[in-house]
């Protein structure tokens, strides 16, 4: 009976455990996103390859998160961050593409806001339970 109780409770995890790869991907993508955003005061057309490389990195990080079980809150965060019809990273890149270039103060304000968005993803990952193996 005791063994059954322990097995039942063990099977009741509600969220994924901490993942070092996910944590590092979020940190690295944040740094690269802010670096790319700094270029948005210049013409979008001059940075097509930079944007494409970053979009690839972003997609990889997102797909990694989507593949983890019990990870809907983190995936939900990435969905908001990436969505081109919202007002964080996805919206910023769309706005840059459509406007050609953006005002320096606006870029700085958006960098702060989007940096905070990444921090929320990083803080959630940090708060997950560390498994015995790491």
């Amino acid at each position, binding site marked *: *009976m*005791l063994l059954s*109780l*322990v097995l039942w*409770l*063990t099977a*009741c*995890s*509600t*969220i994924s455990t901490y993942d070092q790869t996910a944590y590092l991907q979020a940190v690295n993508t944040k740094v690269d996103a802010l670096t790319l955003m700094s270029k948005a005061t210049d013409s979008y057309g001059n940075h097509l390859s930079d944007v494409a490389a970053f979009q690839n990195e972003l997609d990889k990080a997102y797909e990694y998160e989507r593949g983890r079980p019990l990870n809907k*809150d*983190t995936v*939900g*965060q990435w969905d*908001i*961050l990436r969505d081109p019809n*919202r*007002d*964080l990273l996805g*919206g910023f890149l769309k*706005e840059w593409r459509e406007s050609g270039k*953006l*005002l320096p*103060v*606006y870029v700085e*304000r*958006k960098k702060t*806001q*989007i940096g*905070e*968005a990444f921090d*929320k*993803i990083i*803080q*959630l990952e940090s*708060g*997950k*339970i560390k498994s015995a193996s790491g």
Partner: protein
Amino acid sequence: MAILSDDIKNQIIEQAETLARTLLGRFVNQALQDGNAFLKQTENDIATWLQDLKQGDITQKNFDSLVRGEKDLAQMEALKQAGLGQAAIDTFVNGFIQIVINVAIAAIHV
């Protein structure tokens, strides 16, 4: 069929209650602090952007996007808190399992 004695069950309940107060109470306090800090910061940010708009450093469209971005951030914050709440529950469950094991093993060795 074997049953647990009242003494063992009472010990488990007592220790589980202490664990719940420690773990989940701390989570609730942290969530409230984070929420208050977020509200305060949003207020300050909007004041700064309004100043930027008045000075012509950003456009009306930029201002609107920054304010809407706060709504997106709030939703990301809610997801963070939901996830951290689930992690706190999982931590409690793991602690509860350890209590059950410790109390049961101690009872065998009495």
